[in-house]
C-alpha cells in the first residue's frame, strides 16, 4: 500500500529525514517510535503534504501512485488521513457541517453522490458511540474550546467517519489520561481491518499496550535504526532511548 524509499526531507534547509525506508501492507499496523527531534512528526508532515517540508531525495508510492505529486486534499481524498498532534480550532464552523463537507468531498472523488443529512446523522451517531462522545459536540465549532482529550477523540471520530485506507496517528496519545487513551485506542482497534493500515507515531510504549502493532520501528536522527515486532517497544520501555543512542554510536 505504502512504499517509502530512501526518503530525505528538510525544513528551512535543515535535513531532518535522512534516508527512510518503510513498506506498509494492507491490514498492518506499524508503530514508529523515537526520541524527541528524531523526525517522527516530519515524516507525518511529509506524508500528508504539509507546506514548508522539502523532499530532497527518495520516493513515496501510495497504491502505486507518486504520493508526493498529489496536493494535500488529493491525498486525503485518496484515503490518507492524518490524526493531528495539535488539532486546529476553526471558530464558527460547526463540527457536523465540517465533517459532512469532508465526507462528501471524498465521496465525490470516488464518484459517489453526496450523503443525505438523515443518513449522515445515522452514521455519525454510530461513530460517536465508538469514541464515547456526546452528540452535542457536533453543534460546537471545530475543536474550539475542546479539552486536549476531546480534541484527540474528535480526531478519531473524524477518522471513523472518513474511513481512510491509511491513517497516520501523530502522537495521538500525548496529553491523554489513561481513560481517554483507552477510548482512543479502542476506536482505532474497532477500525482495523484487512483493507486498511495504520502508522502510529508515539514517544511512549504505553499506547502500544492498547493498539498492538505488527511492526515497531525506531527512528533516530532521521533514520530507521531498528525494526522489530511489538517486543521491540517493550525493550525500549525497559532500556530507554539511551540504549538506541549508545548502540548507534558504537555502531558508527
Amino acid at each position: 500500500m505504502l512504499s517509502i524509499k530512501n526518503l530525505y526531507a528538510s525544513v528551512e534547509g535543515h535535513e531532518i529525514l535522512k534516508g527512510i525506508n518503510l513498506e506498509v501492507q494492507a491490514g498492518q499496523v506499524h508503530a514508529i517510535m523515537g526520541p524527541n527531534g528524531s523526525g517522527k512528526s516530519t515524516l507525518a508532515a511529509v506524508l500528508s503534504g504539509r507546506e514548508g517540508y522539502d523532499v530532497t531525495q527518495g520516493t513515496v508510492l501510495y497504491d502505486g501512485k507518486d504520493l508526493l505529486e498529489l496536493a494535500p486534499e488529493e491525498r486525503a481524498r485518496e484515503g490518507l488521513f492524518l490524526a493531528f498532534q495539535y488539532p486546529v480550532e476553526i471558530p464558527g464552523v460547526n463540527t457536523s457541517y465540517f465533517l459532512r463537507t469532508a465526507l462528501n468531498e471524498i465521496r465525490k472523488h470516488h464518484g459517489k453522490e453526496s450523503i443525505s443529512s438523515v443518513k449522515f446523522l445515522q452514521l455519525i451517531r454510530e461513530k460517536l458511540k465508538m469514541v464515547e462522545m456526546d452528540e452535542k459536540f457536533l453543534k460546537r465549532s471545530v475543536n474550539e474550546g475542546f479539552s486536549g482529550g476531546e480534541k484527540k477523540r474528535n480526531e478519531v471520530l473524524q477518522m471513523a467517519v472518513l474511513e481512510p485506507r491509511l491513517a497516520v496517528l501523530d502522537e495521538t496519545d500525548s496529553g491523554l489520561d489513561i481513560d481517554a487513551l483507552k477510548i482512543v485506542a479502542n476506536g482505532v482497534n474497532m477500525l482495523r481491518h484487512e483493507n486498511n493500515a495504520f502508522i502510529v507515531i508515539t514517544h511512549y510504549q504505553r499506547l502500544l499496550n492498547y493498539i498492538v502493532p505488527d511492526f515497531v520501528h525506531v527512528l533516530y536522527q532521521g533514520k530507521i535504526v531498528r525494526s522489530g515486532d511489538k517486543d521491540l517497544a517493550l525493550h525500549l520501555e525497559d532500556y530507554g532511548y539511551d540504549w538506541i543512542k549508545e548502540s548507534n554510536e558504537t555502531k558508527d
Partner: protein
Amino acid sequence: MPEDLEMLEHFTNQEYKYGFVSEIESESIAKGLNEETIRILSQKKLEPLWMLEWRLKAFAHWQKMEEPRWANVKFDPINYQDIVYYSAPKKASSPKNLDEIDPAILEMYTKLGIPIHEQEKLTGVAVDAVLDSVSVATTFKGKLADLGIIFCSFSEAVREHPELIKTFLGSVVPAGDNFYAALNSAVFSDGSFIYIPKGVRCPMELSTYFRINAQFTGQFERTLIIAEEGAYVSYLEGCTAPMRDENQLHAAVVELIAMDNAQIKYSTVQNWYPGDKQGKGGIYNFVTKRGLCKGVHSKISWTQVETGSAITWKYPGCILQGDHSVGEFYSVALTNHFQQADTGTKMIHIGKNTSSTIVSKGISAGFGQNSYRGQVKILKSATHARNFSQCDSLLIGDKCGAHTFPYIEVKNSTAQVEHEATTSKIGEDQIFYLNQRGISTEDAVSMIVNGFCKQVLGELPMEFAVEAQKLLGVSLEGSVG
C-alpha cells in the same frame, strides 16, 4: 513565505459575475447639476410643487457644503458636473403589472438571479426592483394592500401618499445632514417606500434590488420605512452594477421610523461592482442610513454584508429615543484587491434603559483596506443605557489592512458600555487542517471566513444567508489558492 503569497494572490483573482451591461433603451437628462437639472428631474417624475421646493432647498444647502475628508479612504475628487442625474428605462413608464415591463429588464433580473415571476410565486418575497433611477416592478402589491401595508416605489408614494412623505421625509436624516445626504435630497431619483399600519406584522420579507445599468449615471435612491405602533417588518436590499472603467457614484439615503413596540429589521447584501484587480473603476458607495426608535420598546436592527464597491462609506445608525428601545448593528465588510471600506455605526442613546449591540466583522484580502468606525453616545437622559460592541478583523495575506476607530461618549454614570476587539490572520494551519480532510483551499478559506462571520450571517433572513455565504466565497475566490 513567498509560496503563501502566491497562493493568496491566486485566490483573490476572481471575476465579478454581475458585470454585464444590458441593452435597454433608456432616457437620460444631460450630465451636470444645477437648479434646472432638478426642475427637469422633478417634472419627469410628475412631482408636486412641494417636492420640487424641498429638493431645491436641499440643493441650495448642498452648494454651501464641502465634501467630507475624514474617512480612512483615498480617492480623486469627484466631478459632480460629470454625472448623469437621471436615467430611466424607456418603456418603464408606470407599469401596471409585470407583463408591461420590458422583457429585456426581466431577463436581466433573471441573470442576476432574481427571477421576479418565480420569486413572486415561490418564495413569497415581495420584490421592488430599481434600475438606474426608476422602480420597475413591485410584486405582491395587492396582497400587501389587503393588510393596509404600502410597499411601492418612492415616486409613487410622493404622488399617492403625500401626507406620509411630507411628515416623515427628512425627519431622521435632515436634508442638510451631510454632504452626500444633501446631494441625495436634491436629486434622489427613486427607491422604496414602506408603511406598516398599527398592529400589523408584515407576513413576508420585503425586498428591493438596485441595479445601475447606464453609463456615467449616479444612483441616488431614497428609502423610507415607517412601522406604526406594534408593527413588524423585515426588509432586504441587494445591489449590483456592470463593470465600468470609470467610478460611479451611489449616494443613497435610508430613513427608518419605529413607533411604540414596533420592530424594523433592515438587511443589506451590497455587491456593487468593486473595480478590477488594479483598482480601476467600481462604485463609490457613500450612503447615509439611520433609524429612529421613536416609541417605547421599539427595535431597529441593521444587518449588512458589504462585499462590493470600490469605496464603501456608510454608518447605519440608530437614535434610541423611546425608553427601552433597542438598536442592533451586525456587519460583515469584505475588501479585496484595492477595495476600501470605512464603515460602522452610530448608536445614540437618549431614552432610559435603551440598549444597543454592535457586531462588526471585517475581512481584508489583497490590498484591501477595512476600517470600522463606530460611535456610541450615551446622553444624560439615558439612565441605565447599555451597549455591547464587538469588532473583529480577519486578515488574508500581508498587503491588506484592518483599522478600528471606536468613539465612545458617556454622559450618564449609570450606563454600561463594553467594547471588545480582535484581529487575526487566517492561519495556514487552519487551511492545512481542512485540506487534510479533503477540502480544497478555496473551500477552506470560504469555510473559515463564513465561520468568522457566522454571528452576523445568522441575523439575515434564511434564504439570503445562503446567498450571502456564496457571495463571500465568490468575493474571496482567488485570494488563496
